[in-house]
């Protein structure tokens, strides 16, 4: 079988003082880099280089689907950027065979003033689709997006959901031999995500080569026969998806307990630390199912951000989101105290709802309009205890039951 992608000895170095290519590299080295940058003069003498990718070798056979997993800043997006030729490698070479479609973002090139129809054609051209192909698929794209009669309305009047659905609909109709997809499934509601996954499965079955980055390990497992685990720019493992994902999960997610983060001094908000423990105290890392759990986040707010909110979500290792609790859910919506610059400690107490098992805790900080911090699998939550012989359920609400003797008249009505 011939290969569709070949990568040999690939390395990508970002030199400080040049700006960093992707948000993900920034996430990884953000704080340290920022401080060094600010030192200015020292920069020339000590070129503190950051290798976003190092010694990467890879072969993807035609028609295969490869999932890439790894923490934020492991080099996943950089690898896609090199494969799609957006950026050139520092050493080594990457080769692709046939037309390459790169979906690193949905809606690239969308302009708010243009109508849905105009944006479909523009976005199609951006993604390398000939005008005639877009015209032929316009009906399918509109059907897929479900925007119907709003096709000739400027997209600035769309809801954010409509906007994303239209953007993904165009992306989903890209017809390339090699498709590079970065986390685009993180948009839209559950139903739409299901359709997107289905569309990607179709593409895989029709002989396209798909490279897919996602934090949704369930999706990776479903879509990809093989997986690549990137760790600090290097290949940690390549192989059967189930094996790689298992290894990755075992190692990559820290156990409960206090964890600190590298802060990015350029961002208006940084997460400093996260602590997951039993509300009643008790040793970190061993949490009892029947006890409430406290998730405590330390953050620094450097400038006033109106409408700043923080959310903690809990998901299964397969990526099924069980909880998503936002600070503004329970505090008055007008002005949360964390909008004020300074250091804050935010804690969330979760009632004992979850079944024994392992979960990932994610932290999001941002506003309605933008995400400022997104730490996927910021902590691992391991709950111990009994499943009460009913392991099939996800939640144990332990609602209160009441049993009373029923009234005499009701009993008398019985024959």
């Amino acid at each position: 079988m011939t290969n569709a992608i070949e990568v040999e000895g690939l390395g990508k170095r970002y030199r400080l003082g040049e700006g960093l290519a992707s948000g993900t590299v920034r996430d990884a080295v953000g704080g340290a880099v920022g401080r060094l940058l600010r030192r200015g003069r020292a920069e020339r003498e000590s070129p503190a280089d950051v290798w976003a990718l190092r010694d990467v070798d890879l072969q993807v056979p035609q028609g295969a689907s490869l999932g890439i997993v790894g923490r934020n800043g492991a080099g996943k997006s950089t690898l896609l950027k090199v494969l799609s030729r957006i950026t050139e490698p520092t050493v080594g070479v990457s080769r692709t065979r046939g037309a390459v479609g790169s979906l690193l973002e949905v809606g690239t090139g969308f302009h708010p003033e243009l109508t849905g129809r105009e944006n479909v054609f523009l976005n199609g051209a951006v993604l390398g689709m000939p005008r005639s192909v877009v015209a032929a698929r316009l009906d399918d794209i509109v059907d897929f997006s479900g925007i119907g009669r709003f096709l000739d309305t400027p997209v600035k009047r769309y809801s954010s959901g409509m906007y994303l659905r239209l953007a993904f609909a165009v992306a989903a109709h890209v017809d390339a031999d090699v498709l590079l997809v970065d986390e685009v499934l993180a948009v839209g509601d559950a139903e739409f995500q299901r359709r997107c996954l289905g569309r990607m499965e179709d593409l895989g079955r029709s002989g396209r080569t798909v490279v897919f980055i996602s934090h949704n390990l369930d999706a990776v497992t479903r879509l990809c026969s093989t997986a690549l685990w990137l760790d600090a720019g290097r290949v940690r493992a390549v192989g059967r998806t189930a094996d790689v994902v298992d290894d990755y999960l075992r190692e990559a997610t820290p156990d409960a307990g206090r964890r600190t983060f590298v802060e990015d001094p350029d961002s208006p908000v940084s997460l400093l630390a996260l602590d997951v423990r039993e509300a009643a105290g008790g040793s970190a890392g061993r949490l009892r199912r029947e006890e409430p759990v406290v998730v405590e986040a330390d953050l620094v707010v450097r400038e006033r951000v109106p409408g700043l909110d923080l959310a903690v979500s809990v998901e299964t290792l397969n990526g099924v989101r069980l909880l998503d609790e936002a600070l503004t859910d329970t505090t008055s919506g007008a002005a949360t105290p964390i909008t004020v610059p300074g250091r804050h400690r935010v804690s969330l107490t979760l009632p004992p709802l979850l079944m024994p098992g392992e979960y990932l805790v994610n932290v999001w900080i941002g506003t309605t309009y933008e995400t400022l911090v997104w730490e996927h699998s910021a902590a691992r939550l391991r709950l111990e205890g009994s499943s009460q012989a009913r392991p099939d359920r996800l939640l144990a609400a332990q609602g209160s039951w009441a049993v009373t003797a029923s009234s005499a008249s009701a009993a008398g009505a019985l024959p």
Partner: protein
Amino acid sequence: MSTATWVENRPTAGRRALDWRELWRYRELVAFLALRDVRVRYKQAAFGMLWALVQPLAGLLVFTVVFDRLAGVPSDGVPYPLFALVGMTFWTLFSGGLNAATASLVANSALVTKVYFPRVAAPLASVLPRLVDLAVTLVPLAVLLVVTGTLPGPQVVLLPLVVLWAVALAFGVGLALATVQVRFRDAHHALTLLVQLWLYASPVAYPSSLVPAEWRWAYALNPVAGLLDAARWVLLGTRPPGLPVLVSLAVTAGLLVLGVRVFAAGERRFADVI
């Protein structure tokens, strides 16, 4: 599918050239980006295309009052308003194109960092909408020509070549400045100053014949000088082009080659630096 050839991505070694054949394959993208700029500019604008007239006409008014009425600047034997309008029209085509080309990469940074396309498509697409503005400005110019009875001679057929010259000059200088602006955002401020000085260094409001004859070749090192002389000859039948126009043409060609070189050298790093 298996017959498709490999596309390689490896570190640049030595000097790079722009891949014009690839640009041709991406011509639809160029067209859509240009079309986007045109549409966006005139959406929700009450006077629409009329705005394209405002800059040259306002310039015309100011120049007529200041240079013609007050200073009594000569105008190569044609009515001064006509003389200044041709100057302003081509100056606007050039300076507008230069501004747009310089800003094009940063304005499209979302595209540059998220998809692959021949980077030269962005400055090229940003210069093209200026031709729409030009077409709009040519209407009052034509009216003025008819009203004043200054009908152009047969050389008017060369008009497309003069337009191409202005676009090529804006594109060439814009390529180099766009490359600089990817790294240094303050290139934008420098450009504002440059364009302002360049306007007064060019024979927009005054004729190049004010420059002593023996220095005219040196004056023509400013390529806009030769460009405007050629434009006035084509439309108004003023002095036919001589050595200075050839000097300006040569400088334009040199700047175009230089711009392409600078752009090609920086191109592969745009996504990392922008």
